[in-house]
């Protein structure tokens, strides 16, 4: 353990001193011409204490001094893992679904509200997963398609009075079209450029929503969107249908749950299809994929359009639930948040994304008083995940075997 500690103490000390030097000018120099040190040192020592604990745990874990704790824990988790693999996966899915179905009966209004948010973000996360996780393209303007979906439903509903179920395909279609318009010129380039161009496109769509007063009512947004309407059968004197609005949150929750389940099934089917294989080959090596006869441009465009369509669906549900849309909801930070969920959970892994969304939506609700630290933690999470566990909390299972594994 001493040996391991010797290896890390030097960069750690330098790093902490660096942080102190970074914090002091921001916190210790005041406009009235005074210099203070106390506040900076206080904040810094909190960070120091916290990171020192993490460092000690890390060192003890790598050196094996924690065997007396990790031993039993790995035995338990190993046992749990063998139990999970022994049980067929449908048992887990049924359990999860059961919990999801009865959840609103126990949770209050607030809890249901959070759960609806979780469902919408699962759909968004699964959609961006098609682009980032399966096809390996970084898309930073993703939330714009969510906006396109939301505005499609809002405008069609408010101006033409079309019902939700009529607008839903249009929301997906328009988001898909927007995806193609963005994707067509940008997908010829690789990686880094694509990221920043999609970022630019996301901003363009937001600026247009903000400034096209005659269509979108600008920053004031669109009010008076109708909720989902459904017909329920009534069996008094013959069969008649009664039309009701889904205004109750608990009822809406089930529709959002349906959306999330639909997205999960669709993404799974896509992943294991021929198209999914093509995406995966593009992600691993684009040149090789092209040589094997994969039309990379078409498949990348398809991934982009598919991802956008999921966002469009989620957007329509969002508009129906809030009954109000404005460009404020579709900023870059939302894109970054969805991306962070996918990165945390594991790119390409459906259970991982569900876990990531729950972690990043539900946890901030629990720690409400730390709300202002939320984005700071998101940013740090992305860096830390990339440094220590790039495949996420629940890594994706690979389809087939790779050549190295076979040889080894």
């Amino acid at each position, binding site marked *: 353990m001493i040996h391991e500690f010797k290896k890390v103490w030097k960069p750690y000390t330098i790093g902490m001193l660096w942080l102190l030097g970074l914090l002091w000018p921001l*916190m210790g120099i005041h*406009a009235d011409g005074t210099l203070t040190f106390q506040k900076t040192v206080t904040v810094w020592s909190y960070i120091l204490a916290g990171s020192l604990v993490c460092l000690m745990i890390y060192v003890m874990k790598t050196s094996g001094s924690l065997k007396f704790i990790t031993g039993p824990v790995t035995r338990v988790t190993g046992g749990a893992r063998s139990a999970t693999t022994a049980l067929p996966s449908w048992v887990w899915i049924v359990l999860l679904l059961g919990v999801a179905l009865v959840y609103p009966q126990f949770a209050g209004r607030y809890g249901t509200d959070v759960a609806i948010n979780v469902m919408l973000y699962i759909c968004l996360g699964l959609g961006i997963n098609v682009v980032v996780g399966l096809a390996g393209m970084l898309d930073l303007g993703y939330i714009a398609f969510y906006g396109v979906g939301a505005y499609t439903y809002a405008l069609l509903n408010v101006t033409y009075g079309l019902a939700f179920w009529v607008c839903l395909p249009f929301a997906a279609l328009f988001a898909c079209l927007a995806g193609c318009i963005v994707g067509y010129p940008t997908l010829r380039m690789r990686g880094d450029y694509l990221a920043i161009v999609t970022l630019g496109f996301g901003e363009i769509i937001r*600026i247009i929503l903000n400034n096209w007063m005659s269509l979108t009512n600008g920053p004031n947004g669109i009010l008076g969107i109708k909720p989902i309407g459904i017909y329920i059968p009534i069996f008094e004197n013959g069969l008649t249908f009664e039309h009701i609005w889904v205004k109750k949150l608990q009822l809406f929750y089930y529709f959002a749950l349906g959306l999330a389940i639909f997205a999960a099934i669709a993404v799974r089917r896509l992943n294991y299809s021929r198209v999914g294989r093509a995406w995966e080959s593009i992600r691993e090596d684009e040149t090789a994929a092209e040589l094997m006869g994969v039309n990379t441009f078409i498949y990348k465009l398809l991934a982009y359009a598919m991802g956008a369509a999921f966002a469009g669906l989620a957007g329509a549900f969002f508009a129906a639930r809030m009954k109000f849309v404005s460009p404020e909801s579709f900023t870059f930070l939302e894109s970054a948040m969805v991306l962070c969920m996918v990165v945390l959970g594991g790119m390409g892994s459906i259970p991982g994304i569900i876990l990531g969304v729950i972690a990043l939506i539900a946890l901030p609700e629990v720690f409400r008083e730390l709300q202002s630290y939320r984005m700071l933690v998101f940013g740090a999470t992305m860096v830390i995940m990339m440094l220590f566990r790039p495949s996420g909390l629940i890594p994706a299972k690979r389809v087939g075997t790779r050549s190295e594994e076979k040889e080894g």
Partner: protein
Amino acid sequence: MEYFIQQLINGITLGGMYALIALGYTMVYGVIQLINFAHGEFFAAGGYVGAIALAYFAGNGYMDSHPIICLTGSFMIAMAYCAYLAVGVEKIAYKPLRKNSRLAVLLSALGMSIFLSNGMMLTQGVYDKVYPSELFQGRFDFGDMITISYLQILIVSLTAVLLVGLNLLVFKTKIGMAMRATAQDKTMSSLVAISSNRIISLTFAIGAGLAAAAGIMYGLYYGSVKYDMGFVPGIKAFAAAVLGGIGNITGAMIGGLIIGMVEIFGAGYISGEYKDVFAFIILIAVLYFKPTGIMGENIDDTRV
């Protein structure tokens, strides 16, 4: 015509700032082929530290007795601070991932960018930080329409000095030669005893220093800075770097000037509300029709 000349002057001022930010992108890209998403945050941090330093000097009353020294001092402090910040960020978030996939480095850079801007928000507050406005109130008037403020002259001349200095550093000194060698071939340059780690740190430091200078100029010009102000100028400066040919220093300067002009003329003649869109449209058009940019050499597939 007078309106045109006035817009031209404003465009050069803004373009100079974009050129300074774009240099950071292009130099880092030239050396390690990475788009440094956190670069816009260096620009914002520079603006903040400049504001803090100026306020400190003003609070002590040095501002009235020695304004030039205070201003120079603030620029120095902000540039040194951002260089220091950038070197650390590179060591923490980029260096360990150099061997990983491109996606991992991009995501790490993006996370760092979010982290830095929110860190600034938490330490400095969510509201605009105001620059002392009594600086450089004067201006020259030519005719009825054309005015050049002292501030604009200061910004343009300082930008010119920095750009010339950078050019001298990169093309005339031994360090510059080492940087160019590392950018061309990392293995080969390490064989002739150039430490690529040190050169990469140096590149980050220089790029961030230039961005910090631009941050102070931006704060002086617009009167205030905000924690998330690095985002949009960052993308525009990236557009400038791509327009000039990414990896090419002269190209970034020209690209920055062009983007600044386009934004000002677009806002003046077409629509002020859509002024942010023009830079993006240029970026997309350049990438679509001539991805190597104006001055760029041919980029093979592995670098794009």
